[in-house]
């Protein structure tokens, strides 16, 4: 091809290592040179970017034997790089623009806030991504979050609180209500899976039905006397601590929790037979059947695992906000689906990575947080959010459209 240039992968990796190291050094140097009242924590961010480039370079070398020994650059590879990473680039541009308008954005504190706000969303998006990967969807996610929140908080109120859900309940070990809440979600997840796997129902309609059931069941529970549909409050501090603890005053405990789940799901998707089967069913269901993949078991597994994650998300939300109502989690599934899709998960199934979902979730939080930061009205935020979803999916589709 015209204008194509190839360099050995070793050299390519080396460039990243050198640039990464330089940036890291630059970051450290800036830390001493620059005026912290004007550039805030910028040096640290430069250091971080340098570290990422360095790690990327090292990975390229260690995995070199599996990859093509040469890296080629041409108009075609540039174009495919742009379409494949359009969202990350958009995120980058957005951050840079916000930083120029409001340099205070360049603070570690801001980054931590964004990560904290992304944590429970991330866990829910990880659950929903499985259902999207088999070209399905899960509309019951939000209601499961609400169910888990209500069940867990209802059993975890302080003994002295006036409006107790169970007035005579002794103080339980904090794990029991949490497990109960997650199991309740998993029962409904099993129902989702069963409807889809056994009756071949489209996940859209199966989970819609289950969503309605969950909301009804949750509202019935919430309405039991003596609570009678009052918001649940007076949550025990040991439970609230799960969502509110800040390590060193700034670093929310939700961040490491979300990271642990993210790594676990990455492992499931990439390193287990189950994960490979999920991609296979999403990629070509017929071929998966012919290859002897147990489609029934895999689909059941998908919906049960997803509901487990929603349960976890619900418990964390309840702990973070120290309360719950039956309307908790309403609409979360749409945010999660949007984040996944923006992160490159294909609604046609079979395509999607954990890395993509991370960027999808982050971009939504960054938009929300960043636009708020520079004082853009929430109404405009909604418009911008919608535009981003539409553009992201349009780019995504052009990637797979074949002539």
């Amino acid at each position, binding site marked *: 091809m015209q204008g194509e240039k190839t360099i050995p992968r070793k050299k390519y990796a080396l460039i990243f290592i050198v640039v990464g190291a330089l940036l890291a050094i630059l970051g450290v140097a800036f830390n001493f040179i620059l005026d912290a009242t004007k550039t805030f924590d910028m040096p640290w961010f430069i250091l971080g970017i340098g570290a990422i480039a360095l790690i990327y370079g090292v990975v390229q070398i260690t995995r070199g034997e599996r990859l093509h020994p040469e890296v080629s650059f041409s108009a075609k590879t540039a174009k495919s790089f742009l379409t494949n990473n359009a969202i990350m680039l958009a995120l980058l541009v957005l951050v840079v623009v916000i930083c120029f308008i409001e340099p205070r954005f360049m603070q570690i504190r801001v980054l931590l806030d964004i990560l904290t706000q992304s944590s429970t969303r991330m866990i829910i998006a990880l659950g929903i991504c499985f259902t999207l990967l088999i070209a399905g969807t899960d509309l019951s996610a939000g209601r499961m979050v609400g169910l888990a929140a209500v069940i867990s908080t209802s059993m975890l109120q302080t003994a002295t609180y006036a409006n107790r859900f169970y007035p005579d309940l002794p103080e339980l070990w904090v794990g029991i209500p949490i497990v109960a809440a997650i199991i309740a979600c998993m029962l409904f997840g099993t129902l989702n899976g069963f409807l889809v796997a056994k009756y071949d129902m489209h996940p859209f309609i199966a989970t819609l039905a289950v969503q309605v059931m969950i909301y009804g069941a949750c509202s019935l529970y919430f309405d039991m006397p003596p609570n009678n549909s009052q918001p649940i409050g007076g949550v025990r501090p040991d439970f609230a601590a799960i969502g509110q603890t800040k390590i060193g005053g700034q670093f929310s405990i939700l961040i490491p929790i979300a990271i642990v789940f993210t790594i676990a799901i990455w492992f499931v998707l990439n390193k287990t037979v189950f994960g490979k089967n999920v991609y296979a069913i999403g990629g070509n269901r017929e071929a998966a*059947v*012919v290859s002897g993949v147990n489609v029934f078991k895999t689909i059941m597994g998908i919906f049960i695992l997803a509901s487990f994650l929603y349960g976890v998300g619900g418990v964390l939300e309840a702990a973070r906000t120290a309360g719950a109502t039956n309307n908790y989690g309403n609409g979360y599934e749409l945010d999660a689906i949007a984040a996944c899709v923006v992160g490159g998960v294909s609604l046609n199934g*079979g395509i999607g990575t954990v890395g993509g979902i991370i960027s999808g979730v982050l971009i939504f939080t960054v938009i929300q947080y960043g636009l708020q930061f520079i004082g853009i009205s929430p109404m405009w935020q909604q418009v911008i959010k919608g535009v981003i979803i539409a553009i992201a999916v349009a780019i995504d589709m052009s990637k797979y459209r074949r002539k």
Partner: protein
Amino acid sequence: MGEYVLEMNNITKVFPGVKALDGVTLKVRPGSVHALMGENGAGKSTLMKCLFGIYHEDGGEIIFDGKKRTINTSKEALDLGISMIHQELHPIRFRPVMENIWLGRFPMRGIAVNKKAMIKQTKELFKEVDLDIDPEVLAGTLSASNLQLVEIAKAVSYNSKIIIMDEPTSSLTDNETEHLFKIIRQLQSKGCAIIYISHKMEEILKISDEVTIMRDGQYVGTWPAKELTTDLIINRMVGRDMTNRFPPKTYTPGTEVVLKVDDICSPLPKSFQHVSFDLHKGEILGIGGLVGAQRTEMVEALFGLREIVSGKVEKDGKPFLIKSVRDAKAHGLALLTEERRASGVFGILSIEDNTVIAAQKDFARNGVLQEGKRYKAAKESNESMRTKTPSMEELMQNLSGGNQQKVLIARWLLTHPDILILDEPTRGIDVGAKYEIYTIMHDLIKEGKSIIMISSEMPELLGMADRVMVMCEGRVTGILSREEADSVQVMRLATAFMK
């Protein structure tokens, strides 16, 4: 108008790697029935698609109604006066019959569809072709043969000068076929010409005026139907030399029976019934027949993808019950499906994932993948198949058809099968890659495996199979030894029930 209503001269059509049509000529006289014959893959449908604007020919000229034409879309063809009844019908099942007929040219009143006029038009049309169907009934509720007749009525409604009929009688009973012939004669008397594609010899000899025969994308000749007999047609359809298209045989097939299929039946009456055969160790058993002979359905049932209601299957002398693909796999069966794209490859996954998918559990401990083992197995299996790929991480969709097929064979070898069922193993693969697949098949036989090969290509069947089983309309019509098998015999058995 000249002597011919349609002249297609020297038509050439090239698909990537395949010359589908090579200088084909077809001349149709007005008001005549012109039969177009040839084996599966001879290029009949491709030629008709060029005429109907679905494909565009790469060379040659189409003269229709005295003028040279380029036909770019089906709409242009219809406007010119060429209509076509397709081999496979795709009705809009949940809409009334009449909407299916007038789609794209509904009678209108202002901006609204004139339903009354549509009913009236449909009734008139049905009367003309002597068909008793309510215009408002949903298309999906009609039987296959009624749908076929509606489709014929639709073609008539265009008042075309030429109607192409691609296997119009494949789902018709004898009476309905008679009915169709009556319609055809009516059309003829109005000066409409028919291009008639069929495998049914007697039908052709009965209805047609002239017969054009094609073979391997080439024009064989045109003869008046009166001068032809069934044997003459078959000879002209299949006559060709077969040198050097297949690797020489360097093994002797065994006699030990590895798979004994005894009288298996499908629950569907129109599918395979009472199929019995033995597969010997170290042989290639070819299964021949025309499209629709239910060969694919039969082997899919053996592989657990379809139901078997009666009959027995024995593997190595032990009966076994196949309920699912996993059962079949556990018993050492492997299947390469006919539709590679639809039910074989995972286009968006890597070669490695594609290769190990059927044997995942062998490369995992407690559900966790053992990456090194997995990668090594995929790489070695593909190397033994000589798959051409830049890396194991390349996406499957970037490979050529031949290489995809090799990956699929590599996939099934990882399950250590004794019996490989290959359904049209070289469909859509270029000539060079075909030879490689044949060599691989011989290698597998030498390793002690046995192969069942379905093939619709006569030379492949005769060149590769040690024995040839022929099916027609779901039944086995004969099993021929290598010595007995020749194209005339196979063709005769493949059309045994066709009148």
